[in-house]
């Protein structure tokens, strides 16, 4: 293990750098400035952040999946994580509500704070955390229950509704906000698995917002959907931004450009560049970002 001491940015100074030798060889021919690991181009911080990630390192067994990532998530903003496959964007997303806890052999280091409180502290319970930071997965995964029960699941386990009327209200408003209510209002007792792919994904979004989260994480929410369903979900994301912070992982750069305000580019476990979406796509500062966006690899 080679330890690099030349790192000079303030965020990496106080942690030992665990850098495997491999990336230098692999990307050498593509990279000009790869000596300074964990050095992200652009401003990773925002004013008044909802979540802050500092020096996040993730290992799956021996594999160092993410290295020294620093990133803030702002209020009422859609942040897009882009990058080639296997670059660690989904891993980073899953760190934000500790979904990686369910994976054997996964080790997370560093600090991720929600409203100033480190969610990896020992006294933090993941149950309320995941209610505050909801997640929508790549493949729609409705439970084998009715549409109503799918949405009511979260409020039930968190005791958010005092009676049936309350619960009805939560379910209906969540379905309305996810834009699904008009399509399913007559068949709330039908199984959720019987809906179309796009409807299932909106059901999963309704399920996530039914527990009134503060942040919604979306892991390629449209990759299993057709263009029309994708457009509906993108409109929905724009609508949800008014109330929630949203982090979205996407493989589609057009989608990132359409829905997000800030974009972060990951490459082989490093966060290369962060900036306002318009700037990243029109005027990328890092050579790797430029190459990815212009379609030279990825």
């Amino acid at each position: 293990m080679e330890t690099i001491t030349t790192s000079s940015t303030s965020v990496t100074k106080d942690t030992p750098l665990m850098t495997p030798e491999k990336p230098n060889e692999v990307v050498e021919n593509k990279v000009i400035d790869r000596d300074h690991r964990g050095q992200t181009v652009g401003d990773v911080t925002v004013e008044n952040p909802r979540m802050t990630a500092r020096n996040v390192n993730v290992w799956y067994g021996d594999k160092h999946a993410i290295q020294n990532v620093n990133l803030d998530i702002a209020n009422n903003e859609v942040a897009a994580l882009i990058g080639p496959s296997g670059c660690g964007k989904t891993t980073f997303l899953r760190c934000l509500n500790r979904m990686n806890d369910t994976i054997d052999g996964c080790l997370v280091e560093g600090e991720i704070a929600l409203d100033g409180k480190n969610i990896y502290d020992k006294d933090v319970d993941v149950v309320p955390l995941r209610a505050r930071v909801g997640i929508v997965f790549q493949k729609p995964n409705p439970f084998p229950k009715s549409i109503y029960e799918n949405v009511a699941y979260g409020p039930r386990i968190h005791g958010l509704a005092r009676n049936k009327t309350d619960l009805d209200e939560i379910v209906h408003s969540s379905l309305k906000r996810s834009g699904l209510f008009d399509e399913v209002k007559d068949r709330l007792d039908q199984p959720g698995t019987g809906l179309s792919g796009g409807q299932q994904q909106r059901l999963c979004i309704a399920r996530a917002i039914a527990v009134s989260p503060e942040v919604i994480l979306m892991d390629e929410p449209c990759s299993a959907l057709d263009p029309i369903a994708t457009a509906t979900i993108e409109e929905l994301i724009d609508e949800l931004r008014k109330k929630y912070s949203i982090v979205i992982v996407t493989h589609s750069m057009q989608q990132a450009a359409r829905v997000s305000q800030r974009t972060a580019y990951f490459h082989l476990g490093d966060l290369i560049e962060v900036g306002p979406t318009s700037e990243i796509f029109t005027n990328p500062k890092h050579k790797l970002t430029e190459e990815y966006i212009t379609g030279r690899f990825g």
Partner: protein
Amino acid sequence: MSISVLLITLAILTIASYSFGRKRSLSLATVTEKKKSSLHSLPGYYGTLTALWCAIPALLILSLWLVLETSIITHIVSEDLPAEVQNLPESERNLVINRLHNELAGQTFGEPDPILKPAIDHYKRLQQISNMALTVVILAISILGGLYAWSRVSPNLRARNHVEIVLKFLLISSSTIAILTTIGIVLSVLFEAVRFFQTVPLTEFLFGTKWSPQTAIRADQVGSSSAFGAVPLFTGTLLISFIAMLIAVPIGLMSAIYLSEYASRKFRSVVKPMLEVLAGVPTVVYGFFAALTVAPFIRDSGGLIGLSVSSESALAAGLVMGIMIIPFISSLSDDVINAVPQSMRDGSYGLGATHSETVKRVILRAALPGIVGGILLAVSRAIGETMIVVMAAGLAANLTANPLDSVTTVTVQIVTLLVGDQEFDSAKTLAAFALGLMLFVVTLSLNVIALHIVRKYREQYE
């Protein structure tokens, strides 16, 4: 030539014809410029086809011959038995022929009956001729079949398609054997049961509450009141099965949940095989355990708190049967729980559900049809289980719901009715077939329901 030598010769011929067929196809093939052979199929298919032609007709004739040989020769021999034997009634003539067969098999002592002497000689002569003819015919058919196929081999012969058809018929006949056997079993039970219902009305059997199958041989015999009400047997069976399921379902299900959801991989890899060892214990050993350990223990501990417990209580048999069924339920449920996609768990955890909430509300819910199917299969096993109840449950046909009493089950009664010397035309013996038929109907319908549920579940995720 004896049958085994004949079979070995046939095998050698088959192997030889494979290689001849293959070689011929290769020698006939012309290779075009594109390096593509002109053969329709791969050379191996031509070889297989030749081998099949060599083996299958010969084997069919051979089996037919062996089936018919004895009866045909016996028929010919019985024609030339002395007239006094010919004129005997049918059943006595059969006795003579039986004696003839016994003589031939060397199962008698002393000198053979002089009347039978010519018949025996004739029989032996015919058998020798038949044996020789068989050898010649089989080898001829085999060689001719192989030659025929060999001569037909040409680049245009669609050998692969022919071989596929033969394979298909082989598979069809294998599955038909299982089905035909089932039908045969059902019919044999059904006919005997019908004979039983000719003496005892169906309504008495189904709704009668007294079971006492001793039939009087003489009118003045003591305890000869025969009664064939099967209700006590079925309640006994249900009582014991119910106790067994009461033990097996919660323990089996919970151990399956622990093993598939909570246990570490290492623990699981050790414990799961150990649990399955339980399934490998012969039921007769469970029977000892129930009769010699559990039943006295229950009786004694019941006595301590002032309960009168029969020494052959339904509780003891049910408990042990439940333990026997645990691995059945746990292993089936474990498979079903593992088949629930990981995305379901992620979805639930992502909403902030705890481990147990996820298991309770999502995983069990998703796995429920499979688990129910597994439980129904286990119930039909419990109902049909024989050895444990024969050893641990009593013979008294009490109509009771008290698990501390002695009860008897359908299977126990079938065993006791058929064990020992019995006449096969008394209602007592035939009752066993009626009971077997009932049992068969019950377990068959349970299995059908269970398989239906399991299949429905599979459609959901695949």
